């Protein structure tokens, strides 16, 4: 049994609970125990770093400090936004001792910067990929458009995940379960991110271009690893359709759901019924 620290983040307990459900289901299948960071809080997301620098560091620092307090050396952070905020905080505070001291003082606990932060892809690469082939019962024989968004790959200097133009990690992983990734142009274009509620029109436009390109290239499903991207591409489909002046019904799956389906995990356990755009696989 492998034990890893787990930071679900707010979305995964609410609007994106199917992401959490599929991550957990997948980990169970591979004998990985996810241990939630006790009493974790919100990372502050875009709102905090738009409005206050120290707040935007303090909220993630509290999470990391709690992980340290609980003896965790490695945590998995499925939400790309949280992964990004946590990684940037770790990097910033490790580079500036004075600032780290100041933030420690704000959150009223020590923070050493010892926790390794993994996104869900990195976690899968590290613990799952090698055993994947043996466990496939239903190859996911579909054309997929792997969508990385911004937060998994940028800023590259800090995250050091995949390459910044035309990343391939998710594509490669899905090939292992029988999917055929399409070569498309919008892998790392922004979907509108935090504007889901405040600027739905912009989300419709940005996400619309992304969805359209995926469909144009013959993709049958879009695959994501970020709840914000998922919300914009799935939940905001009406805005997308109204921008594109057509109806597009390509489903949007989390990478963990695709892998789960290939392993034969039930649709309910993977939370597929929670999507706005129905998943018919």
């Amino acid at each position, binding site marked *: 049994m492998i034990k890893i620290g787990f930071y679900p983040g*707010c*979305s995964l*307990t*609410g*609007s*994106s*609970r199917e992401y959490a459900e599929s991550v957990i289901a997948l980990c169970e299948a591979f004998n990985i125990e996810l241990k939630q960071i006790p*009493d*974790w*809080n*919100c990372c*502050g*997301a*875009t*709102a*905090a*770093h*738009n*409005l*206050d*620098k*120290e*707040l935007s560091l*303090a*909220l993630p620092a*509290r999470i990391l400090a709690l992980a340290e307090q609980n003896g965790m050396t490695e945590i998995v952070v499925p939400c790309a936004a949280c992964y990004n905020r946590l990684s940037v905080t770790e990097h910033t505070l490790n580079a500036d001792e004075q600032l780290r001291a100041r933030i420690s*003082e*704000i*959150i*009223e606990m020590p923070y050493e910067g010892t926790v390794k932060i993994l996104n869900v892809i990195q976690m899968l690469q590290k613990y799952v990929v090698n055993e994947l082939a043996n466990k496939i019962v239903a190859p996911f024989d579909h054309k997929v458009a792997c969508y990385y968004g*911004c937060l998994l790959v*940028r*800023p*590259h200097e800090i995250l050091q995940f995949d390459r*910044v133009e035309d990343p391939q990690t998710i594509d490669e992983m899905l090939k292992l379960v029988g999917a055929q990734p399409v070569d498309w142009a919008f892998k*790392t*274009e*922004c979907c*509108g*991110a*935090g*504007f889901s*509620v*405040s*600027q*739905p029109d*912009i989300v419709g436009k*940005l996400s619309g271009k992304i969805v359209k390109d995926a469909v144009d290239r013959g993709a049958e499903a879009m695959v994501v690893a970020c709840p914000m991207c998922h919300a914009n591409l799935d*939940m905001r489909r*009406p805005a997308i359709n109204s921008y594109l002046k057509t109806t597009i019904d390509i489903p949007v799956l989390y990478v963990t759901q695709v892998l789960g389906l290939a392993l034969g995990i039930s649709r309910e356990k993977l939370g597929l*019924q*929670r*999507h*706005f755009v129905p998943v018919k696989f």
Partner: protein
Amino acid sequence: MNNHLHHEERGLAADVKQTTSVAAEKCYQCGKCSAGCPVASEMDLPPSLVMRMLQTNRPENDEKLLRSKTIWLCLSCEMCISRCPMSIDIPKVMDFLRRRSRDEGKVTDRAKDIVAFHDSFLLSVEKTGKLYELGLIAAYKMKTLHLMQDVTVAPEMIQKGKLHFIPEMVKNRKNIAQIFKKTIKAKN
């Protein structure tokens, strides 16, 4: 002896440099940022123009920047810096300008929805330690009076089990409150 050789730096660009270490003068206006920015067409000032205006070091341009919609439209997607030949951290500049704009009460009306959303978001985090999505939407609606927005989405979310009626709470809420008190609230 040669103090007179050094220009004293003043103005917004100097503040940007001091706070973020981003030197606006490095920009040579190639426009690659504006070319790649997903929201450039919605902006009143595309990112390369923001850098140029900082370079001019003129108070009226500083003022325009702080009152622009651009700074609130920036999604922090980091496309600009990932392709900038001079590695200029424009997102960091945008962060700085947003904070300065708010501190000086210069947020443009055209961005009030965006700021209202951020405020509602942080209010939720401050009160509960986590994001309470239903509460966020309610608070946002009250702030913006966009009462009818998403009336169709919310019920479906509830039906799909995506919205909770009772917020999840951090146990050590005092700790969270302290964090807010020492950071964002200390300044406002």
